[in-house]
């Protein structure tokens, strides 16, 4: 076992040098039509479990991304809005500082990383998230024999008692950076797509590195339409939403 002296000598991972990436996602609420392709795409990519009927009755469904549907107005002037809600990867994440075992922390690339095998399941982070986007494995996720062939080998399958949430498809980011490093080039904009951004038919979800000023994400974030949810809570989320168009267009 390393002595205390050795561990102090540790050259800790120096953040400043490496954070030329700051991943962020922009969701254009004008384009989202609530079709749910992203929900299933995320589930297929990240081995998210289905919990069955009676657990869903207890509001324990595990989708990392949910489409929130709000209704406004009375008949016949009814307006329905869709709001895809996933982990916002806040810069000042209220969930990170309360975890007693560093199971979730903010990595130098602007992601709120949830380390599944470090989590002991106190669920304090789930309580502290104003967006309620953290999901807990109440039971062991059941992938019966033939179905487990579909599991994605890059993502671990979580045991009961572990908190999980949208990881902005860390494994795809890591693969994108690896292939870029193999081919000896920088990561271009649009090179890396999380599962939801890749499969969104209307192109509502865009992903990219907001530090590089030519990226689509940067232009959208500074397009004046960009808002972040619960801005007054000061969490500075990395996921921003573009306001939908004004709906009282006609009349």
């Amino acid at each position: 076992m390393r002595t205390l002296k050795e561990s102090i000598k540790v050259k800790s991972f120096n953040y400043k040098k490496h954070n030329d990436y700051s991943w962020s996602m922009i969701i254009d609420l004008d384009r989202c039509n609530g079709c749910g392709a992203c929900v299933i795409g995320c589930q297929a990519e990240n081995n998210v479990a289905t919990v069955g009927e009676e657990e869903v009755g207890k509001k324990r469904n595990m989708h990392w991304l949910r489409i929130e549907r709000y209704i406004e107005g009375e008949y016949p002037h009814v307006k329905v809005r869709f709001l895809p809600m996933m982990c916002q990867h806040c810069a000042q994440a209220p969930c990170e500082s309360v975890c007693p075992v560093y199971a979730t922390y903010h990595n130098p690339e602007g992601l709120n990383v949830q380390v599944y095998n470090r989590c002991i399941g106190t669920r304090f982070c789930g309580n502290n998230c104003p967006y309620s986007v953290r999901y807990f494995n109440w039971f062991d996720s059941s992938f019966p024999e033939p179905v487990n062939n579909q599991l994605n080998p890059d993502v671990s399958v979580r045991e009961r008692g572990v908190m999980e949430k949208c990881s902005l498809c860390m494994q795809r980011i890591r693969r994108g950076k690896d292939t870029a490093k193999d081919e000896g080039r920088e990561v271009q904009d649009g090179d890396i797509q999380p599962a939801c951004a890749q499969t969104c038919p209307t192109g509502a979800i865009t992903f990219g590195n907001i530090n590089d000023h030519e990226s689509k994400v940067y232009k959208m974030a500074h397009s004046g339409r960009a808002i972040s949810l619960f801005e007054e809570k000061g969490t500075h989320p990395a996921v921003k939403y573009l306001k939908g168009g004004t709906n009282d267009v006609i009349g």
Partner: protein
Amino acid sequence: MASIPSADRCVYCHDYIKADAPEIVKVMDHYNGDKPIEWVKVFDLPDHVWFNHKRHIAKDVPCQKCHGPVETMDVVSRTNEFSMGFCLACHQENEAPTDCWTCHT
């Protein structure tokens, strides 16, 4: 997670090189009988760890550093315990990323 090349690769040469060695015969039976070979994993990482040989080879880390002096062994045995400390120590010495998501996604 690494994998084992398919049996037809072995057969390509061992059809005639040391074809009588008992182990080689076992491989040939499997190939001819169309039965896939069930190798027993000697080096196995827990399921919550994602290991990528490519990055280590790119940094030309010798196989012996982790797998031990394989060239001297005729039956490969596990020399060092693949614990987190083992990997972290090496990562810290060589300025490799020690970020949690490097190995735990």
